[in-house]
């Protein structure tokens, strides 16, 4: 956890990002899903930013929006910049795989009919893919024969290493790991987290998207708490301590207190459906501090004590 990293200029800056989808329901009636609304985030070189939120809260969509690989029925607004320059769709296409790499969730993201070695070699934009792939496989302790296997033949741990290898083999300076530890054996989770730290130690920025707050705290420099399609708070990992008194947003506090090692007290209620979001603060219906103001006006993003928060009551 390098303190110096925080003083650098952000490599990626996302501000006011909104993503919605149009879908057809019975009788060909159209519905709009607001998957991400007015989201802000930034990440610096050598830093690990964990984006933590409940499963199915649209975290992957954030990753896809940054990469510019959302499906055609998505509407995107807001702005993103990479290395100080506006991230337009055209620039996203140019940077994908070269500057920004994705570590996917599962082995399903590998071509089922292609040997994994070949797939890792594609990460290298210039010719020396084979040497690069072999070197990384050795570093990740993958046996020599692994490169000739098909994805379905990989064990859980091997699959994880191969998926991380696809990013490690690329020259990317920003790596987005989208839920890279879903339901894995603790030993494999530990190994994967160690790989992420290695990548950041080499000066790469790592966005670690996860629902596992413990894994996030163990690895990340900063934590972005994701709720109903937006980041309600961004805080240094060190703020998650004690009773959560250093945290800024009631949802972050509730999340922290819900952990087994703390009070193990669940957050009452559930996330609003992205199909019918109400105006105002998205957390208001579940918030103990909720006032009239919360139900009417969306809280603006404020910087408090080295972090950011979207709450009318934060101080």
């Amino acid at each position, binding site marked *: 956890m390098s303190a110096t990293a925080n003083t650098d200029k952000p490599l990626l800056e996302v501000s*006011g990002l*909104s993503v*919605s989808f*149009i*879908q*057809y*329901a*019975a*009788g*060909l*009636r*159209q519905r*709009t899903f*607001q998957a991400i*609304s*007015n989201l802000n985030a930034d990440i610096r070189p050598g830093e690990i930013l964990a984006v933590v939120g409940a499963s199915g809260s649209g975290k992957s969509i954030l990753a896809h929006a940054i990469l510019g690989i959302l499906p055609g*029925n998505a*509407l995107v*607004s*807001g*702005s993103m910049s990479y290395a100080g320059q506006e991230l337009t769709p055209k620039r996203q296409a140019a940077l994908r795989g070269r500057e920004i790499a994705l570590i996917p969730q599962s082995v399903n993201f590998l071509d089922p009919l292609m040997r994994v070695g070949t797939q890792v070699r594609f990460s290298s934009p210039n010719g020396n893919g084979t040497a690069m792939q072999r070197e990384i496989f050795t570093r990740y302790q993958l046996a020599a024969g692994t490169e000739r296997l098909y994805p379905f033949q990989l064990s859980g741990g091997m699959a994880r290493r191969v998926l991380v290898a696809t990013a490690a083999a690329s020259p990317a300076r920003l790596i987005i790991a989208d839920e890279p530890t879903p339901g894995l054996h603790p030993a494999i989770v530990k190994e994967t987290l160690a790989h992420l730290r290695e990548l950041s130690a080499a000066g790469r920025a790592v966005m670690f998207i996860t629902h596992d707050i413990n894994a996030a705290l163990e690895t990340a420099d900063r934590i972005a708490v994701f709720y109903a399609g937006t980041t309600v708070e961004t805080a240094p990992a060190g703020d998650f301590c004690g009773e959560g008194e250093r945290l800024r947003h009631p949802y972050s506090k509730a999340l922290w207190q819900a952990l087994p090692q703390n009070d193990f007290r669940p957050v009452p209620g559930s996330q609003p459906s992205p199909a019918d979001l109400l105006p105002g603060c998205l957390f208001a219906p579940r918030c103990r501090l909720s006032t009239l103001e919360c139900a009417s006006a*969306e809280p*603006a993003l404020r910087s408090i004590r080295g972090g950011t928060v979207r709450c009318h009551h934060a101080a």
Partner: protein
Amino acid sequence: MSDTQSLPIANRRFSRLHINRRQRTVIVIALAAVFLLSLLVGAQFMDEAGLSTSLTERNLPPTLAHPFGTDWLGRDMLVRTVKGLSLSLVIGLFAAVPSVLIALVLALASGLGNKHLDAAITWLADLFLAVPHLVLIILIAFVFGGGTTGVIAGVTLTHWPTLTRLLRAEVLQLRSAEFVLVSLRFGRSRWWVATRHLLPHLKPQLLVGFILLFPHAILHEAAVTFLGFGLSPHRPAIGIILSESMRYLSAGSWWLAFFPGLALLIMVRTFDVLGDNLRLLIDPRSAQE
């Protein structure tokens, strides 16, 4: 904040598009239905005079008086075509109804019966798919000694297996649904479950399956008639019109084949469009593209 405000505008644009799409689907369905109905009804009221032989008006290319031309006996090809299409429609109906009924009964039996019954029905469907449809229809038409009955029986017996497979899959899926399992556990009879639970859910699939069966039935009916099985040469079926036209093609009477075939194509395509749009309305998953 300004970014989020731009969203509702974008949504409005898309929601207008959406209403168009739904309306378009409904309009297409209505138009197709009206076209097919008017074909059926129109043929009944059409002037029979066009079918009388006229020695002065033989082998005329298309003109305003005879848009589809006339044949070697001076009969109006437009009248013959419309009569032929309505005959095909009726035969299609006679073949499609029993096909759908067979498919429904077998699919329900297959889905609700025991494993052996299911295996037997699947095997039976495979059996009817083991021989090319047209060859099987020829065989069945031959067995019935030709005639309209032979053609209808042939088309009926060849078209149930595909629909049965489709409905069976649907029944098997429904069968594992919670409400069906509960009913069975509470001792409801299979018959009760089939009529109260499965049938209502199968209705949309049945309707779409029924309508999509028509184009196949009509094309096969036309094909066997063209080959010379079934309908007598005096009935103006499209297949017969086309098969007769072959003798006059080398003389250059292209309109004898061109228009009746085109009309058949349009009718078959209309059924397809009707079925697909109905399915779109019932099952929006297919509209996500």
